[in-house]
């Protein structure tokens, strides 16, 4: 896929549109080889400038797209079946064991003085009434509600079946993608944040928070780079390793894992937090996908082809990433 003779660094100032990722992408002046007509500029919230010139670059290679869509399949299943498993004992602890009088977090149903049953979530000793969502939902005593779990009803055995099957798919996908990213230099070239980019992080954060998103950029911006690198090489391994730490067999083979995470119940707690970090990532990622041009982004992740504008296309995106 990759052309070993291509440039590796940032595009040169003299020709900022030269796509360094793939030889097939140097199409700046020639029509896109795919049949989709080159239509209007990608969606944005800016006032349109007069007839911006748009062309398409081959942004996402096939391995990236495949890995991405496999994750789209795996993540919701893993999260929802994980919440099903959590519901079998809806409490979290720190350390090796779970002393039931000392949870960090617990979800329960309780009867109030007036005889009413309510859902109560307790975090670090602070109790919150969470009837309808946590602890008690649809007259059923359960941690997370039916709409958030797979299967919907209480069914630990089936939740485990889903979880452990798709965990394998997720791990194999992650290993292949991680290796691909390193070997093809996708990591060093496109994902890993560069020093110049990191210096512009303040501006980039500000622009994102003000919803002044760069659109139609050729490269990932610094926040994307941090997020993608962090998820693929940080959060992903973390959630897999904490998951494996819950296996008594793996603990026997690799006792260091539990030393690292501070015990099996700590590992379970970190696994749970990492799950919510994934949810947070997905929420932000999806909102960014919509805000920076849903169709352009979607097309590029389906076909690889991404529309960029020749000039004045971005604000907040001019810094090196």
């Amino acid at each position, binding site marked *: 896929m990759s052309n070993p003779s291509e440039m590796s660094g940032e595009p040169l100032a003299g020709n900022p549109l030269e796509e360094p990722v793939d030889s097939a992408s140097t199409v700046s002046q020639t029509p896109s080889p795919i049949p989709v007509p080159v239509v209007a500029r990608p969606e944005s919230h800016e006032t349109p400038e007069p007839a911006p010139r748009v062309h398409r670059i081959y942004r996402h290679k096939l391995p990236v797209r495949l890995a991405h869509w496999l994750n789209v399949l795996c993540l919701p299943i893993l999260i929802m079946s994980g919440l099903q498993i959590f519901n079998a004992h809806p409490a979290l*602890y720190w350390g090796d064991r779970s002393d039931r009088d000392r949870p960090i977090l617990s979800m329960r149903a309780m009867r109030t003085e007036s005889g009413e049953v309510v859902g109560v979530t307790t975090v670090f000793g602070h109790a919150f009434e969470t009837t309808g969502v946590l602890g008690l939902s649809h007259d059923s005593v359960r941690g997370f509600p039916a709409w958030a779990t797979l*299967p919907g009803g209480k069914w630990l055995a*089936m939740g485990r*079946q889903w979880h452990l099957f798709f*965990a394998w798919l997720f791990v194999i996908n992650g290993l292949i993608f991680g290796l691909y990213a390193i070997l093809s230099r996708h990591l060093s070239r496109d994902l890993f944040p560069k020093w110049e980019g990191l210096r512009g992080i303040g501006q980039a954060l500000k622009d994102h928070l003000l919803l002044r998103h760069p659109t139609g950029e050729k490269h990932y911006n610094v926040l994307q780079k941090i997020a993608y690198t962090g998820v693929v090489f940080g959060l992903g391994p973390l959630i897999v390793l904490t998951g494996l730490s819950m296996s*008594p067999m*793996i603990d026997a*083979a690799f*006792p260091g894992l539990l030393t690292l995470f501070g015990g099996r*119940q700590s590992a379970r707690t970190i696994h749970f937090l990492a799950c919510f970090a994934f949810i947070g990532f997905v929420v932000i990622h999806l909102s960014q996908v919509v805000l920076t041009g849903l169709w352009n982004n979607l097309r590029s992740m389906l076909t690889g082809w991404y529309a960029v504008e020749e000039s004045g296309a971005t604000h907040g995106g001019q810094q090196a990433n």
Partner: protein
Amino acid sequence: MADNKRIDRRRFVIGALQAAGLFVLAGCDNLSRSDWFTSLLGKAEGVTRRAQRLLTPRRAMAKEFTEADLSPVFPPNGTDNPANPVYQALARNGFADWRLEVGGLVQHPAVFSLAELRDMPSRTQITRHDCVEGWSAIGKWTGIQLGELLARVQPLPSARYVVFYCADPDEDGQHYYESIDFEDAYHPQTILAYELNGKTLPIAHGAPVRLRVERQLGYKMAKYVMRIEVMESFASIAGGQGGYWEDQGYEWYAGI
């Protein structure tokens, strides 16, 4: 015009996504009830078992803790007092009349009393019990190594599994049972425990004898063991999946 088209397209896709979401959720629950899909999901168990066995040395030991790590309360789970008249009679007599039958594919079938088991060399281990539900408790277990017991009855070459029949029936009268293979059966930490935390094993924890298989989840560790049978296959027992919970969809290999 182009704008309208774009909005139509957007509406269509958003509507399609919503429909797909509902369809997927309903579909997942249907899939959970279909034979072909659950059997596909079940393939993961074999992969997990092979991978874990490959990565884990046969003799790799589960971590052993110190007295300071013991759980203040070790919560009993599942049956805490078998609704079985035979068992209740044995319990009233302090299990003096209880006999552990060890048979099946062995050269020398044998019967052991509790006193005889207690006279054999014992092993004490402070280990973490991991329930499939997610909680963990640390207890000190004392008992006889299963390997030691098997050495006395001499399994035949065709033997592959050690099956444990228990005293506790569920509401439908189905008795608890479990099975492990020889790799687990001969592991040094696989014991038939008759003491918890230095005291006679309480009824709630499986008196007079319960199994400990420290590298698997709690449901493998049968309580109230009455009979041990060495077998080539467990397919003929109850639901055929090798254990009470296995018959209800839990994995036979409970290493994770």
